[in-house]
């Protein structure tokens, strides 16, 4: 259903960042960018999937849910931009009832689920190989905390 824009991968362009305040400083539209030449191919497909959530119809879940909010879409794209640098690999991406977006990584004995809530904040649940569960919340603009949570899952 979704196509990977391979043609884009070979062009010399940059993926624009989210024009948001990042940890107390305004970075500007291109202050934090991912060079396309360095991004894995799954990244483009993931961005495409998230952007396609804008086309979800109201009641997409059969329970009267609206599509993901623009704030959630922005936060989800921000999280995605951090994933390649920690080497976590491609997430499973799905909309969540009420206007959120879920990014999940499922391994043989562990899993990390990062849910972007409708207000852009982030909730995560990490289950390690011993079955221990850690969960918590992160504000969407706390990039360092998000990155560390993603990095932890790789260990």
């Amino acid at each position: 259903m979704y196509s990977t824009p391979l043609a884009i991968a070979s062009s010399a362009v940059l993926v624009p960042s989210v024009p948001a305040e990042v940890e107390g400083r305004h970075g500007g539209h291109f202050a934090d960018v991912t060079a396309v030449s360095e991004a894995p191919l799954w990244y483009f497909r993931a961005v495409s999937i998230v952007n396609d959530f804008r086309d979800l119809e109201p009641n997409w879940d059969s329970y009267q849910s609206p599509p993901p909010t623009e704030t959630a879409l922005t936060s989800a794209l921000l999280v995605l931009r951090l994933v390649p640098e920690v080497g976590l690999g491609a997430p499973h991406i799905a909309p969540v009832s009420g206007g959120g977006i879920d990014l999940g990584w499922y391994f043989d004995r562990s899993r990390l689920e990062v849910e972007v809530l409708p207000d852009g904040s982030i909730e995560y649940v990490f289950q390690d190989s011993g079955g221990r569960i850690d969960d918590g919340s992160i504000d969407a603009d706390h990039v360092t905390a998000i990155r560390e949570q993603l990095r932890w899952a790789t260990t």
Partner: protein
Amino acid sequence: VGHNVAGDYAVAARALIDNGAVQDSEHLLRRIYRDWVHPQTGRVLGMAFVDRLSGEVSVFREQMTTVDAVMSSFPMMGCTSVTAQICRANEHLVAADPIEDNTPEGPAHAVLLPKPAPSKKRIRKYANAIAATAVWRRRPPPQGGGVW
């Protein structure tokens, strides 16, 4: 005992009461969107039992309806069942909430509602535990979606 989580959601939850009208042993049907499925195991994921707008998760009491009735207007969805006991054991209220909408499944409508917590973060943990017990009654048609 009634609880609600008003103030924790964009749409304030109603003051629903779990008065035991839905028995612990009852099976509750939940329609499943195609992307709410584990990409490797095919099991239902916790996000299927979360609603971030009101907190209310709609289900249908199987003893009062059928899978066919619940799914009749949604052929692209899947359907699972969980027991009321499991939902209660994972910090959710289970309240009968019949809907008078002239559909065959309307009278069977019920709601799962997370009990109040210090923050919303625990909701997903319990939703995952509920989802882990879900049994497929009808799998969604294979799609692309968020799985690769």
